[in-house]
C-alpha cells in the first residue's frame, strides 16, 4: 500500500506475504506511483510483513538502494532481524558490478577482414597439413596388418557406404530426371533434342555423379566422423589413447579414410548409373528409342571420362573422411563443441570438394589438349 504524506514524503506499507508473485504486483504498483512524483524521503514499513522470500527481499533491496526513487532518502523499518542481516550483506556496488562493462570492442573493417583472411589461411594450412599427415601414415599402417584394424574399416564401410545407398539412389534418380526434363525444352528450341542423352551422360559421369555422392557422404558420414571423434575427445578417450603411446591418426583416422576411399568410387558408380537412368527414363518417355539412347551414350562417353570420375571419387572420399576426422580431433571444450565441429566438418568438406572439383576440371582440360 502506498501513502503520500506531506509534499516530498511517501510511505510504503507492506502487509502479508511478499513472494515472487506479490513482489511482481507490488513492483508494478510502486513503479506507477513513484516514478511520477519527486520525493525527498521514502519510508518502507515492513512491520506487518509475515513472510518474505528471495524475490521479496530483492524488491526491498531495490527500494532501499534508491533505484526507484533516485533523489530520495529511503528508510526501511520493522524488518525481521534475520532478514535485516541478509539485507545488509548486499551493497549498491554489488548490483552496479552486474552491469556488463563495455566489453564489446569495435574493430575497424580492414582489421576484421584481415583477421578473417588470416584465420581462413591458417585453417586451410592446417587441413592440408593434416591430409599430408594422413597420407604419410596410410601406407605404413596398411603395411602392418595388426595396426589397420580391418573390422573397424568394415564397420565404417557399412555405415557410411551400404547404409547410404537408399538416399544416394533417391537423390541421383531425381537429379537425373529433373535435368533431363528441364533441358529437353531448351534443347528442342535449338533443334538439338538428339543431344539430350549425351548431355545427361557427360554431366552425370564427369560432374554430378562424383559430386552428389561426395556431398551426401559429407552430410551423412563426414559429420558422423566429426561427432564420433569429438565425443571421444570430450570424454578424454583420445588422451587415453595417447598415454598408451597410440597415435589417434593411425588408430582412428586411417580406418575411416581407407573405408571412405574404398566406398566412394562404388557409391559414385551407383549414383552415376542411377542418375543416367533417371535421365534416360525421361528421354524414353519423350519418344527416344533404346537403341538411339545406347548409341548416343556410347558415342559421348570415353574411357577418359570414366577415369576422371573414378579419380574424383577417390579424392573426394579422402577429403570428406580426413576433414571430418580433423574437425573431430580439433573439438574444444563445452557442450556445444561437438555440434560446432560437426558443422565445421560438413562446411569445410563441401568447400574442399568443390575446390578439388575445380582443380580436376583444369587438369582434365590441360591433359586433353
Amino acid at each position, binding site marked *: 500500500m502506498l501513502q503520500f504524506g506531506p509534499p516530498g514524503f511517501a510511505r510504503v506499507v507492506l502487509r502479508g506475504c511478499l*513472494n*515472487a508473485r506479490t513482489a511482481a504486483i507490488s513492483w508494478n504498483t510502486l513503479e506507477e506511483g513513484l516514478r511520477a512524483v519527486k520525493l525527498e524521503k521514502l519510508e518502507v514499513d515492513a512491520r506487518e510483513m509475515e513472510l518474505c*522470500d528471495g524475490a521479496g527481499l530483492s*524488491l526491498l*533491496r531495490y527500494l532501499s538502494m534508491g533505484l526507484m526513487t533516485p533523489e530520495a532518502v529511503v528508510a526501511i523499518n520493522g524488518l525481521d532481524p534475520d532478514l535485516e542481516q541478509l539485507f545488509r550483506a548486499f551493497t549498491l556496488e554489488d548490483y552496479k*558490478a552486474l552491469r556488463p562493462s563495455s566489453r564489446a570492442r569495435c574493430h575497424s573493417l580492414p582489421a576484421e577482414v584481415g583477421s578473417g583472411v588470416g584465420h581462413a589461411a591458417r585453417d586451410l594450412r592446417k587441413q592440408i597439413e593434416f591430409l599430408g599427415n594422413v597420407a604419410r601414415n596410410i601406407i605404413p599402417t596398411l603395411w602392418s596388418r595388426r595396426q589397420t584394424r580391418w573390422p573397424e574399416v568394415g564397420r565404417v564401410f557399412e555405415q557410411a557406404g551400404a547404409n547410404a545407398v537408399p538416399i544416394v539412389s533417391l537423390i541421383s534418380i531425381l537429379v537425373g530426371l529433373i535435368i533431363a526434363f528441364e533441358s529437353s525444352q531448351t534443347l528442342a528450341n535449338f533443334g538439338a533434342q538428339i543431344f539430350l542423352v549425351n548431355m545427361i551422360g557427360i554431366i552425370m559421369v564427369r560432374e554430378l555423379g562424383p559430386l552428389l555422392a561426395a556431398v551426401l557422404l559429407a552430410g551423412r558420414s563426414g559429420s558422423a566422423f566429426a561427432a564420433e571423434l569429438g565425443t571421444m575427445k570430450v570424454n578424454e578417450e583420445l588422451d587415453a589413447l595417447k598415454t598408451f603411446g597410440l597415435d589417434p591418426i593411425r588408430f582412428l583416422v586411417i580406418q575411416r579414410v581407407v573405408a571412405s576411399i574404398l566406398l566412394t568410387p562404388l557409391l559414385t558408380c551407383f549414383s552415376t548409373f542411377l542418375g543416367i537412368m533417371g535421365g534416360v527414363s525421361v528421354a524414353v518417355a519423350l519418344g527416344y528409342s533404346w537403341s538411339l539412347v545406347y548409341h548416343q551414350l556410347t558415342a559421348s562417353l570415353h574411357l577418359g571420362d570414366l577415369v576422371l570420375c573414378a579419380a574424383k571419387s577417390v579424392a573426394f572420399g579422402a577429403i570428406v573422411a580426413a576433414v571430418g576426422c580433423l574437425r573431430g580431433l580439433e573439438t574444444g571444450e563445452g*557442450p556445444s563443441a561437438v555440434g560446432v565441429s560437426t558443422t565445421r566438418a560438413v562446411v569445410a568438406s563441401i568447400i574442399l570438394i568443390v575446390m578439388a572439383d575445380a582443380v580436376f576440371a583444369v587438369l582434365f582440360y590441360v591433359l586433353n589438349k
Partner: protein
Amino acid sequence: MSEIVISVRNLKVGYGDTVILHNINFDVECGDVFVILGGSGSGKSTLLKSMIGLYAPLEGEIWIEGTNLVTAEGEERRDLLRRFGVAYQSGALFGSMTILENVRLPLDELTALPQPLKELAALAKLKLVGLAASVQKMPAELSGGMQKRAAIARAMALDPRILFLDEPSAGLDPVTAADLDLLIKELANRFGITFVVVSHDLASIYSIADRVIMLDSQTKTIAVEGKPAVLRDTATDPHVRRFFRREPDADASRLHL
C-alpha cells in the same frame, strides 16, 4: 518432533524385471540434513532420481509436503517440482550461459518478476554461496567446487524448502569439501532448508548429517537408519560397521590372484 516434509512408503524402484531397491520406507523432518549413503552400485542415485521425479518407481509412494509425487499429474506435479531444488553431481550448469544467467533462468522462466528484481534475487543467492565475484563468468571458467556452489545457488533460485544434492563433495579437495559442508549446514540451520544428500564421503557425512539411511546392494533395501556417530559405535552388522569405520573387508584378498 518437527514436521515431516518427505515421506517415502514401500518404494520399489527398478526397470523391467530388474529390481534395484525395494521395501524403502523413511521420513525426512523439516530442517534436517538427511543423507542417503551406500557403496557403489547400491542404488543411491536411483533412489534420489525417483524422489525428484526423474524415474517412475515400480511401486510405492513418495510424499513431498503432503503431495504424492508418484500419482501427481499435470499442474499439481509441476507445482510440486517447483517446490524443491536439485543440484546434480556434475553441477549441470548450462555451458552457454554465465553463472548469473544460470541462476536467473528459473526466475526468468517461472516468475513474472521484473528484470532488476530477478538479477538482485539471483545475485543474492550467489552471494550466499560465496560466488558474488564470479557472476559474469562462464561455467567452464570456474573450478569444480565453485561449479557445485553455483549449482546449489541455482537450485535455491526459487526459494525451495527442500534441496536435493547428488554427491556434493565428489571430486573436491578436502578443504573445498569442508567449505561446502559448512555451507550446507549453515543453510539448513539459518533458513530451515531441508537437505536430502546422496554421498559416500564419510568425513562429510559425520559433519553434516542429522540422519542417514544406508542402502545395501545385497539385500537391495535399507540396511540401517539413524545418526551417523551412533551407527558407527553401535552397528552390529559387520558390513555396516566396516563402512562407518572405513575398514577393509578382512576376508577378502587384496589382489584377486
